[in-house]
C-alpha cells in the first residue's frame, strides 16, 4: 500500500501559459454558488416577504406562549372564563379585539336584570322580534363585564370551551407544528439523500433493489402509514415526526438519485476517482453540493406539506393528543362552534394560512435562486 502524499498547489503550473494572465488576478472575492443564490433571492420581493413572515412566526412560536400568565393547559373553568372573545387593552377600538360578543334571542324583559346582565354590559340590541309571544332580540354585550371579569383580565385571542387561553395555545400549537415539520423534513432529507445517493452512485442491482423498495413504500397511502404508526406507537410529537417522514423520504431519494445519475459521469467526478478519492468523499464533496439546489428546494416545499398533513391528521383526531395543542387540533376543536365563536377558528387558520403562503413563496424564490440557468 502506498503512502498518499499531500500535493502542494504551487507544484502545479499551467502547461500552456508560461506567464500569468495580463492584468493579474481579478479583484475582489470570487462569487460562490451560495452567494449568487442569496443575491438572487434578495431580489425576489415575495421571497423576502416570506422569509420575514416565517421569521416572525418562528419567533412568536418560540417566545409568544410565555407572553402572558396563562399556560397552554390551564383551564379557567372555576372562573367561568369559557369561550371568551378576544380583548387587547389599547386595541379595543378594533372590533375584533374589543371583547364584545353577541348573545342570541335574549328576552328583552330580562335585560334590566343586573344579576344576569351586570351594569353596563349590554352594548346594543338588534334583530328584535317576538318568539312564542315574548319579545326577544340579539344582544351585543361586553362579554368580560357579562362574565364579571375585571379590567386586568384580557385574553388576546380569547378562550376555548375549557377556558384555556387561545393565544398561548395557538402559538404553542404553531411551535409544535413547526417542530414536527422541520424534524420530519430533516429526517426525510437524511434518509432520502443517503438512499438516493447510494442508488444513483452504485447503480446496477443495488439501484434496482433499492428503487423497487421505494416504489413499494410510495404505493402505500400516507394516511394509512400515519394511522398505522399512530395506532402502534400512540399519538405524540415523536410518532408524528416518524409517521410523516417514513414515506416522504421516497420522493427525496428519487430526486437525489436523479441528480447523482446526472453528475456521476462529469469530468470532475472522473478526476476525483482518478486521484483515488473514496466513494463517500466523491458523493459528499463532489456530487452532493452540485445537487444541493433541487434538494433544498424540495425540502422547503416539503415543509408546508408536512404542516398541512399534521394539521389534517390532528383535525381528524389522529394527531397530537390533548392537552398538547397543534394547529390541526385547535382547528378541529373550533370548527364545531365556528358560527358562534369564529375567533377560535380565525387565529389558528390565519397562522396556518400565512405559513403555507410563506413557505410556498420562499420555495418559489429558492427554486429561481438556486437554478444556475437564471444567472
Amino acid at each position: 500500500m502506498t503512502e498518499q502524499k499531500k500535493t502542494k498547489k504551487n507544484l502545479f503550473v499551467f502547461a500552456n501559459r508560461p506567464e500569468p494572465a495580463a492584468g493579474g488576478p481579478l479583484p475582489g472575492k470570487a462569487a460562490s454558488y451560495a452567494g449568487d443564490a442569496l443575491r438572487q433571492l434578495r431580489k425576489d420581493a415575495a421571497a423576502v416577504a416570506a422569509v420575514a413572515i416565517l421569521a416572525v412566526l418562528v419567533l412568536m412560536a418560540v417566545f409568544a406562549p410565555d407572553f402572558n400568565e396563562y399556560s397552554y393547559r390551564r383551564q379557567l373553568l372555576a372562573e367561568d372564563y369559557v369561550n371568551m372573545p378576544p380583548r387587547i387593552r389599547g386595541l379595543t377600538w378594533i372590533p375584533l379585539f374589543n371583547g364584545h360578543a353577541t348573545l342570541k334571542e335574549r328576552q328583552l324583559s330580562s335585560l334590566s336584570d343586573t344579576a344576569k346582565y351586570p351594569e353596563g354590559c349590554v352594548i346594543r340590541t338588534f334583530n328584535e322580534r317576538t318568539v312564542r309571544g315574548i319579545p326577544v332580540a340579539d344582544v351585543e354585550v361586553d362579554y368580560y363585564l357579562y362574565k364579571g371579569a375585571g379590567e386586568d383580565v384580557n385574553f388576546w385571542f380569547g378562550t376555548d370551551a375549557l377556558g384555556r387561553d387561545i393565544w398561548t395555545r395557538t402559538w404553542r400549537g404553531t411551535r409544535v407544528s413547526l417542530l414536527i415539520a422541520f424534524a420530519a423534513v430533516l429526517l426525510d432529507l437524511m434518509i432520502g439523500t443517503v438512499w438516493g445517493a447510494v442508488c444513483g452512485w452504485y447503480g446496477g442491482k443495488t439501484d434496482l433493489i433499492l428503487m423497487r423498495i421505494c416504489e413499494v413504500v410510495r404505493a402505500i397511502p400516507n394516511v394509512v402509514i400515519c394511522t398505522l404508526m399512530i395506532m402502534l406507537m400512540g399519538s405524540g410529537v415523536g410518532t408524528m415526526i416518524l409517521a410523516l417522514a417514513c414515506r416522504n423520504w421516497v420522493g427525496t431519494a428519487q430526486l437525489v438519485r436523479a441528480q447523482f445519475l446526472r453528475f456521476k459521469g462529469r469530468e470532475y467526478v472522473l478526476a476525483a476517482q482518478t486521484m483515488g478519492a473514496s466513494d463517500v468523499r466523491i458523493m459528499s464533496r463532489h456530487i452532493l453540493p452540485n445537487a444541493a439546489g433541487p434538494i433544498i428546494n424540495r425540502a422547503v416545499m416539503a415543509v408546508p406539506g408536512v404542516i398541512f398533513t399534521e394539521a389534517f391528521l390532528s383535525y381528524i383526531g389522529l394527531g397530537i393528543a390533548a392537552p398538547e395543542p397543534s394547529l390541526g387540533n385547535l382547528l378541529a376543536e373550533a370548527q364545531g362552534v365556528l358560527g358562534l365563536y369564529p375567533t377560535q377558528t380565525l387565529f389558528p387558520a390565519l397562522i396556518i394560512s400565512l405559513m403555507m403562503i410563506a413557505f410556498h413563496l420562499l420555495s418559489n424564490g429558492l427554486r429561481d435562486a438556486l437554478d444556475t440557468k437564471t444567472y
Partner: protein
Amino acid sequence: MRKRIYSVLLAAAMIILLAACGKKPAVTSTETSEEPKAEPKIIRVSSENCRTFDPYEANSSEDAFNTWCQARLYRSWTKIEGTTDTRYMRPELAAAEPEQKDADGCVWQIRLRDNACFSDGTPITAASFEASMKICLDPKMKHRSGDNMNLYISIKNARTYYTGGDVKWEDVGIRTLEGNILEITTEAPVTADLVMKAFGEYGTVPVDPELYASCMSADGASSTYGSAADKAKYCGPFTVTKWVKESRIVMEKNPNYVFADEILLDGAELVYVQNVQTRVEMFERGELDAVMITAQVGEQYMDSPDYFSTPSRYILMIEINDNTAHYNAASDKKSEPVRVEHRPDDPNNADVFTEKDGKKTYTAKALDASKMTKPILANMDFKNALWYAVDRVTLARREGGEPANFIVPYTSYCGEYSPVRFRDTDEAKAYVEDIEKSFDPALAKQYFDKAMAEEGLDKLELTLTISSDNDEMRICAQFLQEEFDRIFEGRLVLKIEEIPSANRLSKMKAWRTDENAFELGLSNWSRLVTDASPMNQFDVFSSSYWSKCNAAYHCETVEKTIWLQESDASYKTDMAKNVAAAAAMEKAALEERIVIPLFERTTQSLLHEWVTYDFNDPANVRYWLCDIDTELRK
C-alpha cells in the same frame, strides 16, 4: 357571416334563458276553481345517526335515537298514556288487560286485537307474537333486548333459553292458545300491571317472523332485518317510507295502526346533521322544527323562549376496569389465577360452559390476575383518590348538567304513577354526602399517595377511553386530565383515547376475556324502563345484565339484592321495599366506588313555536316526535 349567425343564436339562447327565469304566469280562473289542498303536517327534526330499525337490536345509549324512533314505529301490548296525574296503561295490540289464570299469579293470558296488523296489512296474531319472542330470545343472536325480558317479570325459563342453557323453546313460558291468546308463565307471582309493563317496551314488540327469517344469515347469528326501510314491518303510528343512510329518514302515518285516527301529524322527516352548528343554522332558517344542541351552543340560547333543557336521565361516570377485584375477593395472592364462581347454578353468569356426564355447568371465566398490567385499578385508595379529585360542580356547570355523587339519576321516580323522586326519599338522602364534600383535593392526594405507595409506583399513566363522536365526553375527559395532573402533581398522567362509540363499547365489554381490555372509560346508562323502579337502575351493575356490563363492578350487595326481584315480585310492586333495596344497593356501590359518578346529563333543544311539548311530564324525556302521538293527538 358566421359571426352574425353566432350572434343571432346567442341572442336567441339568452331570450330563452331570460324567459325561463321570468315570473310564473298568472293562474287562470279554471285552475283556481280547484280546492286548495291542505298542507301536510310534517315535523322536521335533526336526528342522530340511525343504525337499524330492528327493534331487538337498538338498545344502547348510542342507539338512543333508534329507540325513540322505534317508539313511534312499533307498539307492543300496552303503552303508558296520560300525564303525571292521569297515567295509565292503555292496551294497544292487546285487546284488554291480561287475565290471571292461576291462584298464585304466575300464569297470565292476554288476547290480541283481531284487527292488529303490520303496516302492509299482515295480521299480528298470538302465534306471530310468540315467534317474535322466540327471535328476541334467540341464544345465537343474543339480541340486546333479550336482557330486558327480565326487567319487570321473569318469564319461565326465558333467561336460561336466552343464555344458551339446556332448555327447549317449548319449555319457555310463552305459549299460543286458541282464540288469538298468548299465555305467559312466570317464575314467581306477578301482577297484571307488571305483565303489562313488561310488554309495553320496545324490546317486546312483534316483528314479522317470515321477513325476519328471510333476512337471517346462514349461521342464524345475525339478521339484516330493519337495515333498510323495506326490510321491516311496522305496527306503530308511523312507517318508514324512505331511509337514506346517514342522511334522512322519512316517516308517514301508518293507516293500519290500531289508533290511526288519533294521529294528527301526516309525517316526520328526520335529518341527520352531525355538526351542531349546522343544525342550529338550519333551525334558524326554518328548515328544521326541532334540534338538539350541545352545552356550548346552549350557553348562547339559554334565554331564548325556543330553548328547552330537560334531564337526560343518565349519569356520566368513570368506569374502572378493576376486575382484579374478583381476585382480591377470592385470593390474597394476585399472581395466582383464581376461578371465580358467581352463582354457578345460574347459566346467566356463565362465561365458561362445561359438560360432564351430560350435565352442563356454568362458571365465570377465570381471568389471569398476573396479566393485569395496572393492578392499582382495583386499589380502594386509588378509587377514593379518583372520587375526591373530581370537581363535579364545575364540571356540571360546564356541561350544563347537575353534579352527581350518586348512581340513580334525579329523574328516577318511585313507581310508575308516583310523583316522588327516589333522590328525595329519606332512604336515598341518608348516605349521599354533600356534593361539595365530594371534591377534596387534599384528601384525594392523600389517598393517591397511599395507593401509589401500596403498589410501589412513582408515576402512573392511565388511558381514559371515550367516544370520539361525543363533544361532551371530550370536554369532560380533558377536564379530568388537567384536574388529575394538578391534584396529583403530575404523578397521574391521563391519556385520552378517542374511538367511535360502537368500538368503545366493544372494547370495554371485552373485559370479560381480556384482563387489560381498557383502563378507565367514560360512559353512562340510559334506560327509560328503569325510571319507575329505582331498583332496576342496578341491573346494569350486576351480573344479571349478562350482555351489557361495561366492567366487572362486582359489588356483593348489588349481586345479592338484585336477584330478589326474581323470586319475590313484591320488590317490584311494593315501592317502599323497592326503594329500600335500591338505597341499600346504591349505598354499597358508592362505598365500594364501583364507578365514579360525575354529573347528570341534560338534553338541550331548540324547538319552533308550533312544536308543543310538556316538559314537566316525567314520561317525556326528549322531543323526539313525542308530540306526534301525545300533544297533537288531542
